[in-house]
Structure formats: structure tokens, C-alpha cells
């Protein structure tokens, strides 16, 4: 299968490791990965902040980059960005009165999958250790990000994949389904409430005794990891794609604040 990677802007610029891990996983399964070079961002920061006019060129750019016959399915390591591509792009086009864009956006949206969705529903991965060689001998807790959970209805897909990683010890996160407080520009506009939410999430994570917290959205993990780092915690955050990509031969280390540290290495 020819799979187009939508890296998402934050992973592209801040967490390239996550995209490289995604490529690695897909190639291990024998698929070909392509990177449509015109891609940039899904535009949800603009949409969610009410800047529809500014969102339109961003959405149009994404649709242009992915409206090709050059691939079978598209994938992104983010529930939030995939939800935006699937649901928001048509809304933006409609609101701005661009019917042609709306129709093309629907086609692109239908071909785009979140990583765990693609692995589970399309590529039939049920055993990460067996099929991907995933090995990650660490104590890990998992935060299900809101948009993956509530807009894409990912359910336990990410968690189930993680559970089959060799050597992993998964511990349950209390109040896992509570929002971490990121919310895009919410974290700036309502910084106090956002911080209060993050602090509760961080406390729950630390309470599990896990070495790190994983999840499927780099933005939420940056928020949580940034808070943990500020609190001086040793617990870090790491995208689940990197855990799946980790093998016995080439392990990802989990020491320290991984997601923060990840960018610096």
C-alpha cells in the first residue's frame, strides 16, 4: 500500500522523531510511505480561534497537497489533526462559500486516518511485538486525547496496540478521559484554567508511578510534558508511535523528560 504521511505542523517542526517513527512502523509492515511536499498544517488553530477567513488558505493548501491519486490512504500521528481534516475542512469551505473545496475536502477527509485507526482497522495490526517488533521495557501510563476519543471514536485502539508491546508495563491513569487543558489557543486565552487542568492531569500521571505518559497527540503531550518539566518532575511524555517504533535492537530511551528531551537530542 502507498501511504501518504501527513506529519502535522507541530510534529514536523517540533517532534520530527514522531513522524520518523510513523514512517518506520509503516515500512516495517512492508508499505511505501510518501510525503506530499506541499503539506503544512490542518488549520485547526485558526478554525478553533474563530479565524475562518485565515483558515481558508490553510485548508485549501492541505486539500491541494492531498487531493492526488499518488497514494492509497493518508495517515497522521494525531487524532486532533485528523478530526480537523475529516470534519472541520468541509465546514470552513462551506462557511466561506467554496462549494468545490468542500467537495474535495470531503474526499481527502474520507481517505485520511489517524495512526492507530490505520494500523488496527486497515493494516490489521493486533500484536505490536509480533508484527512490528515493538519492545519498550518501561512503566508507562496513557492519556487518551479528547479529539481522538470523542471526535474520531478511537476507543481503545491506541491502548490495545500499546498493550501488545514487548516488555511494557502499562498502568491505568486515573480520570484518564479528563481533558489535559491544552485546547490550542485556549492555553493562552484562558491560561489559568488551562494550567489548573494541566496540574490535575500531571498529578494523576505522577500518582501512577509511571516513568512516562504516552498518548496520540504531540500538542497535548507538549502541554503535559511542559507542565511536568516546569514542576521539576522526572516523568516525561512520549508519542505512542515512538513506543511502537522502539525495538530491542534500537530502543528509545525513556530516561528523564522524554518528549521535552526528545527534541533536544
Amino acid at each position, binding site marked *: 500500500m502507498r501511504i501518504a504521511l501527513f506529519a502535522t*505542523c507541530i510534529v*514536523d*517542526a517540533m517532534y520530527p*522523531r514522531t*513522524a*520518523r*517513527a510513523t*514512517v518506520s512502523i509503516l*515500512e*516495517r509492515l512492508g508499505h*511505501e*510511505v510518501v*510525503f506530499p*511536499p*506541499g503539506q*503544512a498544517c490542518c488549520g485547526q*488553530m*485558526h478554525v*478553533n*480561534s*474563530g*479565524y475562518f477567513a*485565515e*483558515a481558508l*488558505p*490553510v485548508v485549501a*493548501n492541505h486539500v491541494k497537497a492531498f487531493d492526488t491519486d*499518488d497514494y492509497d490512504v493518508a495517515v497522521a500521528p494525531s487524532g486532533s489533526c485528523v478530526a480537523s481534516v475529516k470534519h472541520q475542512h468541509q465546514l470552513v469551505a462551506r*462557511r466561506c462559500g467554496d462549494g468545490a473545496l468542500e467537495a474535495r475536502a470531503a474526499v481527502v477527509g474520507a481517505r485520511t486516518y489517524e495512526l492507530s485507526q490505520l494500523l488496527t482497522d486497515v493494516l490489521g495490526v493486533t500484536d505490536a511485538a509480533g508484527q512490528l517488533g515493538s519492545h519498550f521495557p518501561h512503566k508507562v501510563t496513557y492519556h487518551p486525547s*479528547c*479529539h481522538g476519543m*470523542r*471526535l474520531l471514536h478511537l476507543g481503545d485502539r491506541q491502548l490495545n496496540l500499546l498493550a501488545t508491546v514487548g516488555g511494557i508495563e502499562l498502568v491505568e491513569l486515573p480520570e484518564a478521559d479528563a*481533558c489535559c487543558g491544552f485546547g490550542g489557543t*485556549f*492555553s*493562552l486565552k*484562558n*491560561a*489559568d*484554567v*488551562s*494550567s*489548573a*487542568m*494541566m496540574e490535575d492531569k500531571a498529578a494523576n500521571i505522577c500518582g501512577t508511578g509511571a516513568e512516562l505518559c504516552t498518548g496520540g497527540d504531540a500538542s497535548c503531550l507538549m*502541554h503535559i510534558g*511542559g507542565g511536568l*518539566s*516546569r514542576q521539576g518532575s522526572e516523568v516525561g511524555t512520549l508519542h505512542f508511535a*515512538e513506543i511502537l517504533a522502539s525495538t530491542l535492537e*534500537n*530502543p*528509545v*530511551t525513556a530516561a528523564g523528560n522524554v*518528549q*521535552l528531551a*526528545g527534541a*533536544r*537530542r
Partner: protein
Amino acid sequence: MSNTFLGMPTLPVFGRGNLNATEPFPQAAHRELGNAQLRANLGHATHTIRDKRLKVVAELPDWEDMRDAGSAIKNATMAQLPALLEQFEANFTARGGTIHWARDAQEANEIATALIRETGETEVVKVKSMATQEIGLNEYLEGQGISALETDLAELIVQLDHDKPSHILVPAIHKNRSQIREIFLREMEDVDPALGNEPARLAETARRHLRKKFLSAKVAVSGANFGLADTGTLAVVESEGNGRMCLTLPETLITVMGIEKLLPSWSDLEVFMQLLPRSSTGERMNPYTSLWTGTTPGDGPQNVHLVLLDNGRTAALADEMGRTALNCIRCSACMNVCPVYERTGGHAYGSTYPGPIGAILSPLMTGIKSEENNSLPYASSLCGACFDACPVKINIPEILVHLRGEDVDSKRAKAKVPTQTDLLMKGAEWAFSAGSRLNLLEKGLPAGRLAAGRAKVIKKLPGIGGKWTQSRDIPAPPSQSFRQWWAKEHGAPNAAAPGTTGEGTISEGGRP
């Protein structure tokens, strides 16, 4: 009115009354967040109710079918509202009730006052009602020399404490049992100083306090949960029996109901009386539901009135993207699950309607430009918990985003100096609307890395970014973006054969 020559009133006509925030939400939230007792009380109460709701909802095999039906019935109601209101009016009137129409809060208050004056009474008992809260009826009546006694336990607590409600179902949710005990001791006559703080004792104290009033009341004021157009029937859903007392003992009953509370038919109620109790108090059914149609000879009040209230509802209805907010049945599930409400409480929203529904309904009813209501649509992380919980499937996050758009457009129209957010959005629009531009920007990543210093962590950002670094660090950017790495690995974009990104590449990022 000057515009009647058009034959149609100029829309929208916005609502007035207790619908406005008086300060921006972030400011109010900052203050409320500092109240540790409030946060503890809210945390305890919202977690209690969440668990209860989930349990009783999970019991029903057809919960989602019911939500689908409820949502469709409400959409159908709004689409046919004029005809349904007329049908309701004809049925209610035929059975001895009287209907009044109120364009806004002021008019509704005047109607209620005149009706009370006609009875010669100066005291009325009230059963909890959001509509009368919204129009500020109690305060208005007080100014007219009429005292209104709240009889719902939580409303009574709030009234005795000279406080404001902070929740639509449990207005005293921000108070814990000890605080309630203190209020009773301070404000009620003849309370035994040995009164404990067990909820059962407190409820009993309220019973004693109100019993004489109920048994002698001549006039009651209520709201209504539902009005059934095909029969002219009104419904009040409650727990304590104070509603039954108000609806059956007095001679005169004045009900104030928003025009959106209708359901087309009696049989539609079968859906809503399953959705509402499980969503609101997390019970299979609430203890008492009263239904009345006009008057019944020999049973209950014989002087029965209904005030149908607009007060900005038509303005909300005129907003095609926002009108489903009127489908709300005031169950409060959205606020009970909201992580923002849980931490700020209801007072931070200013309006009678707090929480996620308030954040959309208040600005829809008053207009986005009214006072500080333009900050309300931003009072959400868009986590979507409210939409999941809403029994009538109101897509609150989508309406929040729509209203943010309205706010941005209305400010844009004023053509002032662009705000920091405006500039951020403009800049991001440029960068994100072509891969080549983002690539150009990403060439600056090493500079950011340098700026982060040896610790490779940024602890303070300038400008609006400082809101981020008030509580979170930000990692130093990587030395190259993914797209730069890809181009190097593959030569020209997509030109390389598959398989070149072997396992080894990931470890490069993974090892210190």
C-alpha cells in the same frame, strides 16, 4: 416601532436581564480559581453526579436511540414553532388557562406583577425556574413591594445567603453541607443551634421552615420544563415536593416559560421524561412530575396563567449555526462533565446560564457584542465532553467555534489596531498555507535551539507566548524539521525508493 413598515420586525431582537457576564471570563475565572473551598466543593459534587449519570445511562439499551429521537423532536419543534405555539395557546386556553406573551424580561416582569396585584397578595411562593431567574423576577417584585419566597432547597439556600445561583439544577452546588448549616443557623428563625450538618437534618429544617408558607400560600410562580402543543399540557419536573405544593395548593398559578420549551405532542414527552432525569440528577426518574392542562374544576389552582417569553430566544433562533442551543432541556449534564466549569464554578460565567450551554446560549440571546459575553465562547478547551453528555445532542463545541468566528468578525469590522492574536493568526496563515513557506520558517529552528540554551528548555516566551510559559516549559526545537530530514534522505521530495528509512533512523532521535 419605527421598523414595522416592513411588516417584519428587524432581527435579531436581543434579550435582557441576567444574561450578561460583567467581566471577561478569564478575569472572573482567575478569581474563582483562587477559592480552594469552592474548587473542593465543585470537584466533589461534579464527580458524584458524573458517576451516577454514567451508571443510569448505561442501564438503557436504547439510550442513543432516545438521544436521536430527542434531538430530532427538538429540531422539528423549532422548525414549526409559530404553528406549535398557536396550537398550544388554543388548547391551554380552551381548558381555562390564560396566555400572555412577553417580548422581553421587562414585559414578563410587568405581566407577572400585574397578575399578582390583581389577587391582592404581597407574598408569593416560587418553584425553581430558570426563566424567572433570567428575567430577574424576584428583584423586580421586591421593588414592587411583593416578596417572592424560593422553595427549592438549593434556591432557598442561595436566597437566604443573599448569593447568586451557580448551577442550573443545583444552584447551591458551590456550598458544602457545613456552609449550608451555617446559613440556616444565621438566617432562619427557630433553628436549633445543635443542628448537625447531615443532609437529611438540613432537608428537614427546610421542610419546617417552609411548611406554613406552603399551606397558606395564595399565589405561586413557576417555570415549566415542557409544554405539549397538541394538548396544551405543562410539565414540571422536581424532587422535593415543593413544586407540587406550589402547583396544587394556591388559588393562583403564574408560570413563566420560554417559547422554545414546547414539544409537538404528548407522546414526545415519553422521550424527554427518559432523557431528562437520567441526565440531570442521575436518577432513573425524578421523585415527582406534575402535569396540568389549564384548570381542572375542584383540583388545584383555578386562576391559571402562562407567560410565554422571548427575551432573545428569537435572536438565537435566527442564527442558523447556533439555533440548536434552543433545544436545551436544562438538564445540566454539560456543566457537570465540563472540566472548565468544574474548576471555575458557575459565577464566573456571569449569566443565569453557566457552563458549556451558557457559553453559547448567553451570547446567542444577547448578541456577541453585548458587554463581556464575547469572552464566553472561548471558555472551553473544546474537549467535547459536553456534546457527548448532552441528551439532545447539541454540538456545543461546534457552536462555540462558530461564535468565536462571529466575535472575530465583529471585531474585525471595527478595524482597530490588530491584536497580538490577530497578528499570530495572520502570520500562521502565511506560514501554513504552503509547504515551502513552512519549510522556510523551519530553517529558523536551529536559532530557537540556540535561544533555548544549554538546558534545551525554554522557560519564558515573550508576548502572548508568556501565557504558555506561566506554567509550562517548551522544548528547544530540533536541529532540523521532519521535512528537511525527509528531503535529505530521499533527495528530491518523494523521489527515493521506499525502505530507505530503516530502523536505525529512529534510534538516532531516541538516543542521547
